[in-house]
């Protein structure tokens, strides 16, 4: 098992990847996961996070088996 991390739209282009897999033996916060996967890149302030397809804050805890997504403000409609 692992944590699946996905990136969308302009953020996917910024990080240069559409997804990551992260092995974690304990729960990590959304913010900690970003830091670990993108150490060179500060988490842009307007970036939204979704845990298992529900919006969450950066302090939400992510567990093994979860899917975490990072994306810019949405622009549908």
């Amino acid at each position: 098992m692992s944590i699946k991390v996905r990136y969308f739209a302009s953020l996917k282009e910024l990080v240069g990847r559409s997804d990551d897999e992260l092995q974690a033996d304990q729960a990590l916060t959304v913010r900690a996961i970003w830091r670990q996967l993108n150490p060179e890149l500060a988490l842009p302030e307007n970036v939204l996070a979704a845990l298992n397809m529900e919006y969450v804050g950066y302090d939400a805890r992510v567990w093994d088996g979860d899917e975490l997504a990072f994306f810019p403000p949405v622009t549908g409609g």
Partner: protein
Amino acid sequence: MLVKLCEQPFNPWREVEAYQAECPEMAGKYGATSVFVGSMRDLNQGDAVVGMYLEHYPGMTEQQLQAIVGQAHAQWQLLDSLVIHRIGEVMPEDVLVLVAVWSAHRGDAFDASRFIMETLKSKAPFWKKETLSCGRQRWVEKNTDGYQTRAE
């Protein structure tokens, strides 16, 4: 209550007509049908736009749209609703989104369709990438608040 994503151009008026025909139990019950149709313009921020790509988060998009429509049904007296949103490559004049709401009375129909549309704009995970007439591509950075008076 139906939510769907559509990769091909669609005619919103035919969709409304067809959906209504498929719901005979609504016949005679609705006094108000509120229909919102959002289309792609050929101009944005002063630049000519020749095409657009609509990215989305498969799974979460449908889930969010269902939740938004569910909230509308909980808050207003609605008989039924239909939401269709385009994904993928779109062209100017294409319909991007349809929100149709059936209710006994106009107040519920108007307010619920506005709520669905405004909440979709701020919550449903879609992203637009425009292709300008000069060939350059750019991401649309954010949606404006539809309840604010536009400055232009």
